């Protein structure tokens, strides 16, 4: 069953058509990759789902419920969590407090009053518990990405939307990160919707890959189908 569904979503910025009538589905329990050249509209699609932007037309349906145009905090409470391509840490707050914000606002939060213990748990999950009492502005890019994942997990989402989280990692770390995301999915019974430029990672992790190009839904399929598709090769190499 489709957990998340986009129906003919369109979004324009002035003269730029960032998305044009894009439809897609993300099945429960899967990892779905979202790829496409720079400016294809991937982040815009995330923003429409997360409520950060309102679509010009089209619908977003989550667990059978129309959530189009709801504010981001309400969307979060429905069980959709996201990270930002350019990380947005709460710089003057400690990492523990950063994650704490996710904990205390989650209607599904398991912490009864003690958000610190729960927040620490999620810092451990992503492996930055050493930084619990460090202000987030002192983190490097990789640590900031991990912090964002911890923060997102702390809201107890059903679906986790990752926007390019592998930046700054070497090839060995990328392999570990892919394993990590898969383990997260299995252990937390998550669904993962994942934008990534690192093709190898998406090919290894995803069950399905959706390709956007210039705001259009170009194609979708298994990783094997996608890499073999001439339109995809053209979209990436043809410019």
């Amino acid at each position, binding site marked *: 069953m489709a957990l998340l569904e986009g129906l003919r979503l369109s979004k324009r910025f002035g003269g730029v058509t960032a998305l044009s009538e894009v439809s897609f589905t993300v099945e429960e329990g899967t990892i779905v990759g979202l790829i496409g050249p720079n400016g294809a509209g991937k982040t815009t699609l995330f923003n429409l789902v*997360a409520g*950060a932007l309102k679509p010009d037309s089209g619908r977003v349906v989550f667990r059978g419920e129309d959530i189009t145009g709801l*504010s*981001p*905090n309400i969307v*979060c*409470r429905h069980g959709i*969590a*996201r990270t*930002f391509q350019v990380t*947005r*840490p*709460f*710089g*003057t*707050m400690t990492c523990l*407090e*950063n994650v*704490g*914000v*996710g904990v*205390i*606002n*989650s*209607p599904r939060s398991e912490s009864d009053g003690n*958000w610190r213990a729960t927040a620490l748990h999620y810092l451990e999950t992503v492996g930055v518990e050493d930084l619990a009492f460090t*202000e987030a502005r002192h983190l490097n890019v990789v640590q900031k990405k991990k912090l964002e994942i911890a*923060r*997102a997990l*702390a*809201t107890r989402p059903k679906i986790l939307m990752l926007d390019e989280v592998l930046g700054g990692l070497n090839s060995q770390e990328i392999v570990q990160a892919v394993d990590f995301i898969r383990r997260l999915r299995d252990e937390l019974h998550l669904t993962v919707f994942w934008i990534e430029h690192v093709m190898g990672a998406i090919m290894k992790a995803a069950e399905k890959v959706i390709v956007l190009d210039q705001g259009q839904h170009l194609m979708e399929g298994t990783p094997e189908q996608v890499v073999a598709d001439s339109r995809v090769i053209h979209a990436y190499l043809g410019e």
Partner: protein
Amino acid sequence: MTDIRFYLILFAAAGLFSLLPLGLGDYHLHVMIVSLYYLMMASSWNLLAGYTGQVSFAHAAFAGIGAYTSGILAVKFGVNPWAGVIIGTAAASLLGLGVGVLCLRMGGIYLSLTTLGFSEILRIVITNEYDITRGTMGLQVPGLVEEYSKAAYFYIMLGAAMITLIVLYKLIYSNKGLCFRAVQNDERAAASLGVDVVKVRVLAFTVSSALAGLAGGLYGHYLHLITPEIPSLDQQFLVLSMTVIGGMGSFLGPVIGAFSLEILSEYIRAYGEYHVLVFGLIALVVARFAPNGLMGLAASRLPGGPAPAVTVPSTGKS
């Protein structure tokens, strides 16, 4: 900061302060009373500007609402000044709620301009409604205590300042406070984690206005004369300077700022009313070169000392 540490420090400080009337003459007690008023004003403005990034210019106006509401009720309707202060506080919080809701979708400069407008409208109304407010002549109002004594007012203001600090502490160091600071840091990220940004901003506006109303109400009855000076922009900039110079976004910053600037201004009063201008300039320099104010400087001098929570609020975000 743990709860116990906060209450220990607060009550220890208040205990020491309560000895002051034994050693200080009327003039110095007056300076302390005024300082406590500014402490309440600067600390509650800090909740808005320092913790949720809403730079409001209507804070002195809300103090004026508290003062005039209570004063007019006492003069025209014979309402007990204490009851008047409570009603004045409620009026300020209601208006604060209104302005907060009005400014919801505004960020940065638009919010500042709207609150500036509100403040100006209030000034015009007060100066023109002479029959009710006595305009620039000022409204003579009864005091809060039967027998006038500086010491009595000092204890009243000390109590009110403690209430203000406890309310603020409860908010800032509660779960809500975590949300406040998240909103101040990055609204979009906060919203993505389930924070109701609108609610946070309105709550901060309402509470901060209520505290300004309380401060203004008490202060008016202390002075026995309520003039448009209380809700003036002069006062607003003084409160702003105190917060910025002391350390915006840190809990103690406005407290330090209020005392140091009020005491300092008593010394330079001889040179005329330019001191607000001077403080404004100092505040500008501080905002530029030491955005965490005196608290930030103190923290950077003491390794391992508590770093101030927040830097200057980001403006211009919608």
